[in-house]
């Protein structure tokens, strides 16, 4: 296990370096370069632009800029936001808890929901409930997150007033845990629907596979209770392929968070990224993309490790 981990971590280094270098070069290859935003400002002269370029170190060759940037990153410094003049790292970390709150809630809801629906569908295969769940999961998978989010916003926030339409918590009136939870309901469910739809399919097919396996028949023949068979024997084995999918999905929740945070004005990293894109705030863009690449690479390693832990037949080497 330790050797596997070391090797995978070492392999991740060139991958991450490659991603960051590509991004860096791309940003400098665009017309106008990182200063494109300043060119449009009123009263901007050529001299002032050149001065800014020197100030930000943009007059040096790209590879020098990249090594300087990389040296900074290794010290936790992603540079300063062009717009707010604050450290990009600080800006990102300030937004991190809000995104984690949203993603963790959505993830937990999706795991519970997909296991419940998937197991139910497998145990009652071809029943009317199974067909209903299957149909709904097809709908859920085809429903674009942004559309679902807007529809839920219109129905539950604008029309019915059951839940607030956006933000982390109320600025006036009651605050506290209840208020925060009420704000969390719509964005978290928006994010969870696609995952439940997709993952419940995986859980169902994984369960169906093990239910027909010999060891389950053996367990039945031994006279074990149906409940013990399902939970101790079948589910534990069905978990193996499902967990991998779920861990990798968790990393990709960030993409869904982009949309969800925009719809519900949730002050997380997704919204920060959208603002940074609109303002061409490159240090912030680079900070977020680099951070997420690290998260995804690690999620993949964790998924592989879990696979090895859950299934003793898989040797990690």
């Amino acid at each position, binding site marked *: 296990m330790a050797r596997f981990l070391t090797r995978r971590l070492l392999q991740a280094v060139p991958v991450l370096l490659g991603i960051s270098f590509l991004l860096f070069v791309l940003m400098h290859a665009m017309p106008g370069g990182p200063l494109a935003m300043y060119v449009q400002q009123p009263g901007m002269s050529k001299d002032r632009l050149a001065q800014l370029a020197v100030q930000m170190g943009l007059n040096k060759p790209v590879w020098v800029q990249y090594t300087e940037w990389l040296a900074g990153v290794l010290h936790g410094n992603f540079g300063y936001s062009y717009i707010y003049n604050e450290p990009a790292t600080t800006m990102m970390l300030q937004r991190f808890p809000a995104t984690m709150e949203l993603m963790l809630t959505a993830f937990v809801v999706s795991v519970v929901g997909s296991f419940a629906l998937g197991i139910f569908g497998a145990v009652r295969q071809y029943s009317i409930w199974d067909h209903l769940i299957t149909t709904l999961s097809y709908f859920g998978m085809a429903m674009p997150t942004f559309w679902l989010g*807007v529809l839920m916003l219109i129905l539950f926030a604008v029309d019915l007033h059951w839940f607030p339409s956006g933000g982390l918590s109320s600025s006036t009136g009651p605050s506290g845990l209840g208020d925060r939870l009420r704000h969390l309901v719509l964005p978290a469910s928006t994010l969870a629907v696609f995952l439940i739809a997709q993952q419940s399919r995986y859980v169902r097919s994984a369960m169906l596979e093990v239910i027909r396996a010999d060891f389950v028949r053996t367990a039945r023949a031994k006279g074990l209770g149906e409940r013990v068979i399902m939970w101790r024997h079948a589910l534990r084995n069905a978990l193996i392929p499902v967990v991998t999918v779920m861990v990798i999905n968790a990393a990709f929740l960030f993409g869904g968070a982009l949309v969800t945070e925009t719809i519900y004005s949730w002050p997380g990293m997704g919204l920060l990224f959208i603002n940074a894109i609109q303002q061409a705030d490159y240090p912030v863009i680079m900070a977020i993309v680099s951070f997420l690449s690290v998260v995804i690479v690690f999620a993949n390693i964790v998924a592989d490790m879990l696979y090895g832990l859950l299934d003793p037949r898989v040797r990690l080497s």
Partner: protein
Amino acid sequence: MIDELAWEDVAPRPTRSYWGMVARRFSRHHLAMASLVVLLLIALASALAPALAPYSPNQPDLSAVLAPPGGHHLMGTDNVGVDLFSEVLYGGRISLMIGLLSALVAVGLGSLVGSVAGYYRGWVDAVLMRVTDVALSVPLLFIVLLLALLAGPKPSTVIFIIGATAWMVPARIVRAQFLTLCEREFVEASRASGQLDRRIIVREIFPNAMAPLIVNATLLVGQAIVIEAVMDFLGAGLSPPNISWGWLLNQAQSYIAEAPWLSFFPGFMIFIVVLAVNLVGDGLRDALDPTMRL
């Protein structure tokens, strides 16, 4: 008992071509067939938008601002009185075209990478698969938005961006197919007869590697439509005159309370198309799978 056997029982079944069999199996998949019909109808309606649209998509009508659906405006009107149904028809042209072409770009790039990696193996394969791994480890939606910012909002760049970020799965599929097919006798025979690598790859192996690729390509069309819509929705995509369903949804954001229909219909079109594409993909998968016999 042999003479009791009717001739029909022992006669060789009429040989059908592989694709003829696939088409027959697909046509028996009722849900997939219905989805295909729905897709074709939507595509046809979009293609004929200039003839079918009751109003011009850029003709404001200040006497019918934010009119709800019904009456003269099937899907209602927007904040300057433009007919939403007409806009949805025109939007379908861009959305479907971008979905189709980006999926083609992705499949083309993926086939190229996958076939070269699977045919030549060795270090070529190692390098190409590492690149594929890297491309799979980036937060895709973020990269797509960044590229859109860098390249500007033209339909051609959007197609290229989506295609360039979706080729990895087709590449892996094609490579896996090539790895097994290259061991087969017919490839050996082509090599022995001195054919060029390029010809063997394109004419001999690739046609046999198509089945799983077609299923994936179908699903990619749906994904590409959604990604294009997300780009537009987040304000990093197209702008008029290139209206798409995603752009309509973006515009509807300012009027969710006054005119919810502006959000409903364009999103509903995306939903129906993606649902139909997924079902067609399922039907194709079942029809192409040689292990399933009817």
